[in-house]
Every structure is written in structure tokens, then in C-alpha cells.
């Protein structure tokens, strides 16, 4: 195995891209990712915050304490993972982290691995998705992605600019990918439009160092409120409106042992909207 360290985008070769390594190293070790060439992209991904632009190489620990950063994103960073992982992990990498679905992690031949079964739907799925879960019931684990989705962030990659929502793709028969990032495409920066208020609330199994069972980010800008959820769908999930959950539970299609997430999500959305004032 070789390790390359390109210093600009033009020098990018194909391979397994690695930044903080908190996700990629365990996936390499487990054989879910493989390749003979590792590409350390820290030399070409910007790091740090400049006005409303966040370098994708900025660590979660750096964002957690930065007063320029909207509250929802600071809190999402603060509540994510452990201190060491927040010191190591970049915000760009966090957006691309894979599901915690144990069947996927244990390399069951599930639909995300190209098979024809979602083992979680019939099996153990307490921590899985409650919406968009028909083809694959995995839950997206990124607190940060939910916060950035509520904040209406834009993503600049080595190839294009796009709204964060368009980075993600609910996996289906034709396309099993969870993101629309092309081969060789690297997230470079995130752009945040101004917001008047924002908040992130998170239900987890422990008070610290836990993935979101349900995470709710809410942001208000120009009289409009955007709400996004973590841990409820195979991708970070944007609600159609702040009232989307008020009229009943038709919005969700929980599995037998994920029904508990539905009232938790409703309560957190209500509290998040109230916290915006």
C-alpha cells in the first residue's frame, strides 16, 4: 500500500481519500473500503473559517468553540462523537460518513452492498430509519449534516457548487449510493447564508459520545424556518415545513422497533421551534 500527499487538486490521483481518518481507517481495516493507494488530502483541503466560508478540513473541535459559527452547527459539533474524534475529524469527512447500520458494517450482502435484502427491516433495527426506509432502512448518523441542511449550506467541491441537500441521494435499486459525489471529487468548502437563530437538539442513548437516535436542527432566516433531522433516514432529512409533523404521524413509516423514534422526533421538533423564539 502507498500513501500519496498531493498539495493541490490538479495532483489528485484516484485512490482511497483520507483526511482525519476516523471513518476511513476502521473501514479499511474491516475491508469495507479497499485499495492499494491512500491519498492524504489534508494538503489540498482548506482548513479554518473565513467569514461565512468553512474550509472542509476544519475539525469539529475547532468549529465547536468558534463564535462565528451559528449555534446549531456549534452544538451539533459539540454533541458529536468523542473529544479525540472531534479533534481528528474534519467537517467534510463528517458529511461523508457511512451509516452505523450493523448489518452494513458487518458486511452482510445488504442492498447498500449490492445485494437484494435489507436485513435490518426483518431483523434488528431499533436504531434505524423511520422515513424513506423502504429500500434500505439505514439511518444517516451525521449531526453536522442535519445542522448544515437546516442552515441551507452550499457545498463547493473540486468540481462544482451545489446545495447540501443535492449532495445526498436516498439509495434505490438503480443507484445504491448515499451521496452524489463523483469518483475523484473532493469537498473543499461550505458556505453558510446568514441566519437569525438556530438550534440543534439530540436524543441519544448516553449523554456523551453517542450517535443521534434522533437529531433535530432548526434555523430561522428571513421569516422562514428550516428543519432537518439526523438519524431518521438513510440521508440527512429536510422537513417540508415546520408544521410537517404537527398534523399526525403520516410523515413517518417506522419499522416495528423504530416506532419509538416518531414521538421523540415530534417532541424535539416542537422544542427546537420553541427555542428559536
Amino acid at each position, binding site marked *: *500500500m*502507498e500513501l500519496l500527499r498531493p498539495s493541490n487538486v490538479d495532483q489528485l490521483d484516484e485512490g482511497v481519500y483520507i483526511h482525519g481518518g476516523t471513518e476511513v481507517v476502521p473501514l479499511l481495516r474491516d475491508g469495507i473500503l479497499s485499495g492499494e493507494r491512500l491519498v492524504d488530502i489534508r494538503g489540498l483541503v482548506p482548513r479554518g473559517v473565513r467569514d461565512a466560508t468553512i474550509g472542509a478540513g476544519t475539525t469539529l473541535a475547532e468549529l465547536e468553540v468558534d463564535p462565528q459559527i451559528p449555534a446549531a452547527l456549534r452544538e451539533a459539533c459539540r454533541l458529536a462523537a468523542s473529544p479525540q474524534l472531534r479533534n481528528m475529524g474534519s467537517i467534510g469527512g463528517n458529511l461523508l460518513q457511512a451509516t452505523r447500520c450493523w448489518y452494513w458494517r458487518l458486511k452482510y450482502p445488504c442492498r447498500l452492498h449490492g445485494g437484494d435484502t435489507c436485513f435490518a427491516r426483518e431483523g434488528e433495527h431499533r436504531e434505524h430509519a423511520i422515513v424513506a426506509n423502504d429500500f434500505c432502512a439505514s439511518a444517516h448518523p451525521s449531526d453536522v449534516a442535519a445542522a448544515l441542511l437546516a442552515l441551507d449550506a452550499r457545498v463547493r467541491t473540486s468540481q462544482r457548487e451545489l446545495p447540501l441537500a443535492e449532495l445526498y441521494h436516498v439509495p434505490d435499486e438503480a443507484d445504491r449510493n448515499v451521496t452524489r459525489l463523483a469518483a475523484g471529487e473532493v469537498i473543499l468548502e461550505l458556505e453558510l447564508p446568514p441566519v437569525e437563530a438556530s438550534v440543534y437538539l439530540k436524543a441519544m442513548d448516553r449523554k*456523551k459520545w453517542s450517535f443521534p437516535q434522533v437529531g433535530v436542527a432548526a434555523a430561522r432566516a428571513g421569516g422562514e424556518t428550516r428543519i432537518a433531522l439526523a438519524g431518521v433516514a438513510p440521508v440527512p432529512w429536510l422537513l417540508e415545513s415546520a408544521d410537517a409533523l404537527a398534523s399526525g404521524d403520516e410523515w413517518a413509516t417506522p419499522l416495528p422497533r423504530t416506532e419509538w423514534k416518531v414521538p421523540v422526533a415530534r417532541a424535539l421538533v416542537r422544542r427546537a421551534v420553541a427555542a428559536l423564539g
Partner: protein
Amino acid sequence: MASELIVNGHTYEVRAPVGASLAHVLREELGLTGTKIACNEGHCGACTVQIDGVPALSCITLAHAVRGEVTTIEGLRDHPLVDAFVKADAVQCGFCTPGQVVSAAALVAANPEPTSEEIRHHMAGNICRCGTYPRIEEAILHWRG
């Protein structure tokens, strides 16, 4: 592929192949066995070292990708926290203790008088299966002796 590693002020050449973890190299190549490997997947904090003063998990850090100076528990043997842990009896089996001290040393370097809440937030990535958390907190609160 040769690569240099600075650990506790000494420079070493890494001989392990690309893909080897920093924890593996510290223990098996450099003989610095104070750094422990427990979960070996970035969860438990037993392998914590500092890289340029910042706590990181050496079991999921690739040795060849380290940029910066590594400090292990061996580099902190004279730190007052070591005595503070002994004095507070913040150890039962002791396996997690090196990682605990490495994390705590970074905390008190940045914030010499942390509150209990700050200690709990900062130390959340170091699991103690014996459950000595109240004594670890006490040791850090009184780290200056």
C-alpha cells in the same frame, strides 16, 4: 516507504508498511507500551496520545500520516497529573489510565482550572470500565496537588 516520526522529542524512522497504526508502531517498533490498545477501532480512548498537544486516537491514526509531534504517556511521566491520579486513587485495573492522563494533560494545559462540567465534557472520550470516573474528576480538579 520511510517516514519520520517525532515522539516525546526523539525522531524515529518508521519501518512498518503504510497502513500500520500509530499505536502499533509506538508499541511494537518503538517499545513505548504505555499506550494501550483496547477496542482498536476508535471508541474507547485507551490509545490516546497527543499530536502537537491535541488528544488523538493512535489506534485509528496511520503512522505514516502523522504530521506533528507525538507525546505519549512516557513523555508525561513527570507531569503532576500522575501523582494526582495516585493521590485520588483514580485507578482500579489501570488499563485506561495512560489514555486518561494524556487527555487530562491536554485539558489542564489549555484550561488550568477546569470545572467539573468542563472535565466531564473533555474526558468523555476516555472510557473506564472499572467506573473510577468520580476519582478521575477529583484527580483533575486537584491536579496541582
